[in-house]
């Protein structure tokens, strides 16, 4: 099992934490946080995600489905060129956060 899968696995499980308002910074791979009380919005910060393979793509799609079911928005930020190319290859589209920065302010 690659490190990547292990870490995204953690990411997926952490999302299910009951205290969903908190910000989750998962290792160096994926940071996600949920502004559920103010605005139903899930942001996946891919700052440290250099590239993704099909398992990563599947996970992004799972997040997308989850957000549709939960009626919350999903937005990505800090998408690398390589991740962008992979998304184009799969012809999958995800909404982006308007401002992206290396120093994301996660405060609500």
């Amino acid at each position: 099992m690659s490190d990547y899968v292990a870490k995204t696995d953690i990411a997926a499980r952490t999302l299910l934490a009951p205290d969903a308002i908190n910000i989750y910074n998962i290792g160096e791979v994926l940071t996600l946080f949920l502004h559920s009380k103010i605005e139903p919005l899930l942001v996946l910060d891919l700052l440290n995600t250099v590239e993704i393979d099909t398992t990563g793509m599947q996970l992004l799609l799972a997040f997308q489905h989850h957000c549709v079911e939960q009626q919350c928005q999903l937005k990505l930020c800090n998408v690398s060129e390589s991740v962008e190319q992979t998304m184009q290859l799969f012809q999958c589209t995800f909404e982006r956060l308007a401002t992206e920065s290396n120093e994301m302010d996660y405060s609500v």
Partner: protein
Amino acid sequence: MIGPVETFQVEAKEHLAALENALLELEDAPSNIDYIDQAFRSMHTIKGAGGMFGFADLTEFTHHLESALEKARNGQIVIDVDFISVLLDSRDHMGALLDNTSFTAEQKIASEELLKRLYAIVPAGSLTHEYDANSQKEINQEKTSNHVFRILFSPDEDSFRNGFDVAPILRELASFGETIVTTKTAKLPSLKEINPESCYLAWDVCLITQHSRNTIEDTFMFVMDDWEIHIEEIDLDDNDDNSDRLGELLVSRGLITTDQLNDALNKHTELGQILSSEGLIDSDDIKAALAEQQVTRQMKGKIVTQDIDSNIRVPASRLDSLMNLVGELVIVQARLNQIANQHDIEDITAISEELDLLTTQMRDETFNIRMLPIGATFGRFRRLVRDLSKELEKKINLVTIGAETELDKMVLDKLGDPLVHLIRNSIDHGIETIEERINKSKPETGTITLSAQHADSQVIIRIQDDGKGLDVNAIRNKALEKNLITEDEKLSDSEIHMLIFEPGFSTAEKVSDISGRGVGMDVVRRSIQELGGKISIDSIPGEGTSFVIRLPMTLAIIEGLMVRVGAEYYVLPLSAVEECIEMFSDQQAFANKRLVTLRGAQIPYLSLREYFQVEGERPPIQQVVITHVNDEYFGFCVDEVIGQYQTVIKRLGKLYEGVTGFSGATILGDGSVAMILEPQALMDAATVENA
């Protein structure tokens, strides 16, 4: 069962063999674009699949070669011996890289050195920037009109765990033309239940391309057995207006029924929206169908379903197991036949006869599954001849005839090494140097002909060279020196030729890396004999030498001669049997000499009754089966010769591995066991006993 990575490694080796062949052909015909394309296809497949299985270094290294080949294809570099040499060496290196997913320290150095050699021919800068989908597209294009394919594939759930990645496949498909990709997420569980290592996705790809269906199928070559893959070509010539309607498409895909379609149409709303909102169909399916509808409308066509012509890769051990079971079946059938004859019940006899026919067909089919053309083995020798002739500064052309001749896989596997040695000998000792050939008014280029043909149940393989032929005097002198023969021994030329197969014999004045160590020819003969075959030599001084190998087509079945001693039955391989003679009781008086006279010659024999300590009285007239093995005649004294007998060989278990004299056993119709004798081993045992 072998895993997907092992399957890739096995298949990549086949592509490497094809690559070698294409490069060798290209060396002979540098202007033939087909050979470049062949080489390119092999490299491209290895590169694509290598990336899919995590062989990143192999992929990157192959990419450089591929780019160099592209330059050659475009006429930007000259295809000469140096270029082919570096590609051939790189091809060998690719073989080594298949063992690991990343470079070892030595492999890294070797890779750099090879690329340095490549860069010396093709400037490095011109190689690195061109790996993109468009260049791939151009290189691979088969110049035909556009096709539209619908490609549906669902990886199995363990695909990710097994190291598969779908991205390289989509990338490869994108390199063939324009794609519309729909990722189907219907089976994707909730985040709570998802296991990121399991694959829940499927893909529906609409591809507009100039490539053929075969090229697309090649993309899935390594996953064909494990994934659900369906490739359809949309018929662009069909003008049926209904063919590109969404409803028709969804019905044709089996996603909805005609009734559901009609119900939805009656609602006068957008069809896809209705079907999706009513939960009849997944929105991804609608999206995929709409993509196809869009393309087909553009291309004016409709879908035609074609079947995938697929092959199944089966481990050889499974075929052995199948063969063994068929062998058991043949034996049970023989017993049934015997019982049916004994009881003379019409119904059972009829069933037995029918079963006999089916069993025979099944046995023959099973044998055929194991048969492989010898061409793949022949292909290995082209490189050997090329490299050795360059090393020895000789010019040699290898001609192969009868590459389609089929042999049992087990025989083929064991045949490679003896053939390598014979060819090395022909190159090293047979074919003269260029100067010698010119002096003898021979063509500068020597020829080695490798041919194979069927003759009855045997395959005859001939390795023929037009070199200097065997030196009878040199062989004789060397044999005297090694005490293999005595001064007063009178031997024919052909008998002298056979001395080269004696252990430790070599007339080479110096030991070279190529041959001349004096151990090879002995091993060659032994290997051939272990395969149940024979080797002979035909040589004419100044004109050349032919080694002729006769092999049984299979090791799983034996053409034997059944004999009886007391109540025991034995089978001798028919290939070794020369003739049978009777031995009367007065001749048996001299039995202690263990010699029988045949046309004036004294032939030693072994009494199987004595050797196996079979109880009972000797019959007044015994039979001696004369065999001919290793140019020696030897007899086996038996009570009765039953006759020719074809049977499936049952290997002796591990418990009997150390027992010599038997190559296996067979079970007779009445359930009794008949041992299959190994004449050479029995001769050796008898000789030791006599000594």
